[in-house]
């Protein structure tokens, strides 16, 4: 073990900042990161053991105990439940004779829940030893578990491969793209390298000018003007600069980056190269979520090809002195790492805790150097902006939101998938497009976004009205909005907080318990006021976007579906807490003393 671990540490030059990679390699080699491994890593990096453990224990896919020869991570997003997740989970438990969150007695199969894996268009889905199994049925679960009992390898159990590049032998994936609508930016015809060849004829200032002229705003959700971000970074003091691409799409319900990574990886890398040229960076990092680990070999091959074609490496496209290269950094399961400063921390091998601002990443980012972080989709759009000019791009969309947007649409609709639309599309038109006219509610921009009712279906998707990072979840009449959706989203935030800010660590659970009280029929009207007031504190008090939006599922449904809440309160006149159960409260002491109170 010592030899193997030392070799891994050497591979990353005993660099503490590469702790994530070291841990990922150790976990891949041994199936767990044991106490002995922690000691060896700490020794090798000359840090304390608790510093290694703090990173391990932060990420959901790292484990200090064995999670079985076969490890099954079943998605528990709200849409997975809509698509029959409960039956699939039950079948897994029955077939394995083991509960979720544990490993079978013989140590062979581990069953674990996991947050949205970016497959909402093909749920229920699971990741088994890194391989995605979409559209699970009870019979295929039985086949999988039988295969495991026979000792088959996971690839042997695979079914039909997916469409497009998914069947490329390096991807070898059963995932389907479900590209339902292509638009005029991302999915327009493009010859690889065109933008880079044009780029090297421009000055960095001209590049930034073109991006500014396009009026493109960050497509990850926050909507910060990209040209301005690059400008700030290029002006910040620093001897080195970095370009980071955020491919951590963890917002439940989004899967558009999955499709871009599969079908248009060249655009991502070209976009990063353009950003590097504009700000003067030599190194780039694609931060990719662990859930998409199956793309590793494929994406590495795309990078290799770009190096061969001189679109990466030294003197790119013949431009003397333009040197830039990209490495892929995998995450290990943490939604909060989609927050840009948490992503940087993670790239540096630390816990994914968002940083305080100022300073901003453009001033002090990766390794405290000026850093540009853009979303996958933003960087891809930039390629087309350089190809066709900023003005071309700015003509599309709305007044304040130029261009197109990829929507990941899932839930109760006929045609879930990825749609490239111009900004400004009406919710009603979108529902018609996807066969979701019967919607009871629409969750715009995932759990951190807002939940709207019919009265808002006339509204439009754009930054001046309903902003969206791309996740659209359609909720049908048959759903219990509070139980099936709001509670699921709150559970998600309870698990995914980094735990640093007091309100974000503490309040989501308190709020969820309050919802449960209402669902149990013990609510009173003042509970609704409490829910509202306490939720507002989340927005006011927390450091990062996760904490500030974590109560949005409650706030937006209280606003738009108040009648659903009021219907849970049986007696609206009562103003005292009806939730106290005396029998339950004294049960433990009754058991301890062996007698029951005479009530």
């Amino acid at each position, binding site marked *: 073990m010592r030899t193997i671990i030392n070799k891994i540490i050497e591979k990353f030059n005993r660099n503490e900042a590469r702790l994530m990679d070291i841990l990922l390699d150790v976990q891949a080699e041994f199936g767990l990161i044991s106490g002995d491994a922690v000691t060896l890593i700490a020794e090798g990096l*000359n*840090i*304390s*053991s*608790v*510093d290694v*453990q*703090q990173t391990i*224990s*932060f990420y959901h896919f790292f484990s200090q105990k064995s999670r079985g020869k076969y490890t099954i991570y079943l998605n528990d997003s709200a849409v997975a439940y809509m698509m029959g997740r409960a039956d699939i989970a039950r079948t897994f438990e029955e077939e394995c004779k083991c509960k979720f969150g544990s490993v079978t007695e013989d140590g062979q199969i581990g069953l674990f829940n996991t947050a949205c894996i970016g497959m909402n268009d093909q749920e229920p889905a699971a990741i088994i030893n890194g391989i995605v199994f979409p559209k699970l049925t009870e019979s295929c679960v039985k086949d999988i578990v039988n295969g495991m009992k026979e000792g088959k390898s996971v690839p042997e159990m695979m079914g039909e491969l997916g469409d497009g590049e998914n069947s490329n032998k390096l991807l070898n994936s059963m995932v389907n793209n479900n590209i339902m609508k292509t638009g005029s930016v991302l999915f327009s015809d493009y010859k690889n390298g065109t933008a880079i060849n044009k780029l090297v004829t421009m000055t960095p200032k001209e590049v930034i000018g073109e991006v500014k002229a396009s009026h493109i705003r960050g497509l990850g959700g926050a909507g910060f003007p990209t040209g301005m971000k690059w400008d700030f970074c290029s002006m910040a003091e620093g001897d080195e600069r970095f370009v980071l691409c955020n491919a951590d799409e963890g917002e439940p319900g989004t899967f558009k980056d999955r499709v871009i990574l599969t079908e248009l990886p060249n655009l991502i890398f070209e976009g990063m190269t353009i950003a590097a040229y504009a700000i003067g960076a030599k190194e780039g990092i694609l931060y990719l979520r662990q859930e998409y680990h199956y793309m590793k070999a494929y994406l590495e091959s795309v990078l290799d090809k770009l190096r061969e074609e001189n679109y990466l490496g030294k003197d790119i496209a013949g431009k003397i002195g333009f040197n830039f290269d990209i490495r892929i950094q995998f995450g290990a399961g*943490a939604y909060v790492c989609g927050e840009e400063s948490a992503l940087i921390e993670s790239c540096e091998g630390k*816990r994914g805790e968002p940083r*305080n601002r*100022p300073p901003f990443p453009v001033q002090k980012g990766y390794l405290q150097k000026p850093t540009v972080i853009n979303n996958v989709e933003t960087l891809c759009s930039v390629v087309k902006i350089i190809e066709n000019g900023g003005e071309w791009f700015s003509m599309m969309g709305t007044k304040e939101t130029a261009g197109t947007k990829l929507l990941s649409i899932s839930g109760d609709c006929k045609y879930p998938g990825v749609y490239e639309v111009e900004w400004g599309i009406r919710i009603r038109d979108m529902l018609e497009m996807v066969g979701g006219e019967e919607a009871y509610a629409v969750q715009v921009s995932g759990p951190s976004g807002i939940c709207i009712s019919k009265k808002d279906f006339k509204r439009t998707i754009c930054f001046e009205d309903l902003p969206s990072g791309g996740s659209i979840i359609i909720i049908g009449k048959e759903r219990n909005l509070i139980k099936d959706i709001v509670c699921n989203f709150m559970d998600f935030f*309870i*698990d*995914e*907080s*980094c*735990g*640093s*800010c*007091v*309100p974000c*660590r*503490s*309040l*989501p*659970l*308190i709020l969820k*318990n309050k919802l449960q009280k209402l669902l149990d029929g013990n609510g009173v009207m003042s509970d609704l006021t*409490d829910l509202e007031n*306490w939720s507002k*504190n989340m927005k*006011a*008090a*927390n*450091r990062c976007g996760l904490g500030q939006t974590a109560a949005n599922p409650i706030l937006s449904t209280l606003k738009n579906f108040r009648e659903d809440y009021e219907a849970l309160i049986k007696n609206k006149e009562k103003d005292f807490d009806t939730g106290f159960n005396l029998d339950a409260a004294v049960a433990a002491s009754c058991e301890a003393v062996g007698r029951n109170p005479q009530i």
Partner: protein
Amino acid sequence: MSEKIKFTIDGKECIAKKGQYILEAALENGIYIPFLCNMKGVKPAGSCRLCNVKINGRNMTACTTPVAAGMEVESEIPELQELRLSIIEMLFVEGNHFCPSCEKSGNCELQALAYKFQMLVPRFPYEFPIKEVDASSPKLYIDRNRCIKCKRCIRNIKDENGKSYFAFYKRAHDVEICLDKELAATMSDELAQKAMDTCPVGAILRKEKGFDQPIGTRKFDKQAIGTDIISVVENINMEVKE
């Protein structure tokens, strides 16, 4: 002398060194902004969120935001005081705080803040979590019932090579502090005392030592938290060259 700038807190004129954080500058100007995770000489964390102030209508933590010239900071306004009280209440319900039996009573900053904010019964239901006490190291014991996860110990207690004695473990609601067993085995009495003094509550305590000072005569028994702050700015008009 470093460059001085003027700013205001709740309308009161203050001066700060350029680049200084608001909280630090406020204290030097004799103004108390409540906090728990901040500590003089230690890199601010901005995690307890108590020092939230309003700048241009936006909430920012005073411990991590540098003062800018002409900045107008709002601090003691009802909205923020209410937010601070609710955070103190959250800390009480997420842990198990039994002040009468705690060695830190009277020297505890959380207890002192609860008094200052006149907290009676928290608005949130108590969680009564089950927490482990770690007494495995020779010099210290860690009572996680009382830990408020402020990270002061993580940031302040290092060995001569910069290695951390303390670190966070797990995340979200389950986050807890842990002490490095190997390093703790050779911890000096001085460092153990420093660790205990760093902790604002009674989560890090020295072994074989306690109740040196009787309850009733301790720091916050005599004086409410934040009332002992004295301005070190001598003459506000003299120091700033207009």
